[in-house]
């Protein structure tokens, strides 16, 4: 198991991590652990290796990222929920697509005894070749860990990649009906700094300081 964790996790279990912080907005239905388990199971990552889909996004377990298991309270540690976002993508190399398209085009021309294919025929053939390759090519998984402290309403997401953060925000909303507010300078000031109404008015009107003469 430890080998698994070491091999595939670039997040929480790495010696050097990237971290984005979120605040959870909204109320979660009680009992909390059961509600979270339901959201995780319903939106756990689907395998697409034998499928024509080119992308799959869902939750997985931190301890077994390639066989999601949210039974019992396996994702619950004290007041923390710890699980992972998995994004599987298939990418067909352009040269591979070109190779199979050339082969299939030759076969079709031979079969129809013609010297060319129409624009529509080329389009249909490309779609067929792409679909066939998508079914044969395995997806590449990316696993991003997260820790959700449901008492403090903080989420630590172990990636700074824009695409993975966007996937997280939409999947979290879909799974738990809760919004994630990203913490950056404005939201840190507005949500975490206990500003009075008067201070908040000043914040809204601020403009950059020039420290140089």
């Amino acid at each position: 198991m430890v080998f698994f964790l070491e091999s595939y996790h670039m997040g929480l279990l790495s010696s050097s991590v990237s971290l984005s912080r979120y605040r959870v907005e909204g109320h979660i239905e009680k009992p909390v652990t059961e509600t979270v388990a339901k959201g995780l199971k319903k939106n756990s990552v689907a395998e697409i290796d034998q499928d024509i889909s080119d992308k799959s996004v869902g939750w997985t377990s931190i301890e077994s990222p390639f066989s999601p298991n949210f039974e019992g309270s396996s994702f619950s540690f004290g007041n923390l929920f710890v699980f992972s976002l998995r994004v599987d993508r298939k990418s067909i190399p352009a040269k591979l697509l070109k190779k199979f398209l050339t082969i299939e085009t030759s076969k079709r021309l031979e079969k129809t005894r013609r010297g060319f294919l129409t624009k529509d025929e080329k389009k249909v053939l490309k779609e067929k070749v792409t679909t066939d390759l998508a079914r044969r090519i395995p997806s590449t998984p990316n696993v991003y860990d997260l820790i959700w402290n449901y008492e403090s309403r903080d989420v630590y997401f172990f990636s700074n990649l824009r695409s993975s953060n966007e996937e997280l925000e939409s999947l979290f909303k879909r799974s738990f009906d809760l919004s994630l507010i990203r913490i950056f300078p404005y939201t840190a000031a507005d949500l975490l700094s206990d500003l009075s109404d008067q201070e908040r008015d000043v914040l809204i009107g601020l403009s950059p300081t020039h420290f140089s003469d």
Partner: protein
Amino acid sequence: MLDLAVAYNRYRFLGDEFLTWLWFLIETDQNTFRNIDPDCTALEMGNRIVLENRKKKSLERITIRGDDAGLEEGRLALKKGALLAELSLVFKTGENQWQFSIKGESLNLSNFKAPGPALPPSQEEMEGFLLNKYENYNKINVFIEKVFKSFIKLRVSTKWSAKVIPNIKKWIRSIDA
């Protein structure tokens, strides 16, 4: 609350000002950090700083790497109107140290190295390991949140123009001394 995408860009300067103020504090007032976290024995500059100058027509970006990361060159860039956009830091307590980089516009952390083992010693010790790991990451996040809160309270007060800006300008000018 404002639209978040608009707010991210409209107020990104606050992050750069925060990091610049933080550098000023590191050099002039370590007590602030000890008051925020009594465990903190020192907050030190790490080995990389990135400055951006938006006063010029085109954005000028300066990256300084290496131990004692060219602080004089950095201050010279401040003098020309640049602000810190990214900063690597070392947070020290009596026994441990945390290293990380913080980005002004997003407050994202990267190259974050916390004390303790990267992997659990055994499957049975996973829960204790994860809780400990969380505490180690949380310590720095709580620290940054409190330091940022001190900054923003100052930033929306009259003290910012009356005291902080003159002191930072004086500190920047002190490179000539």
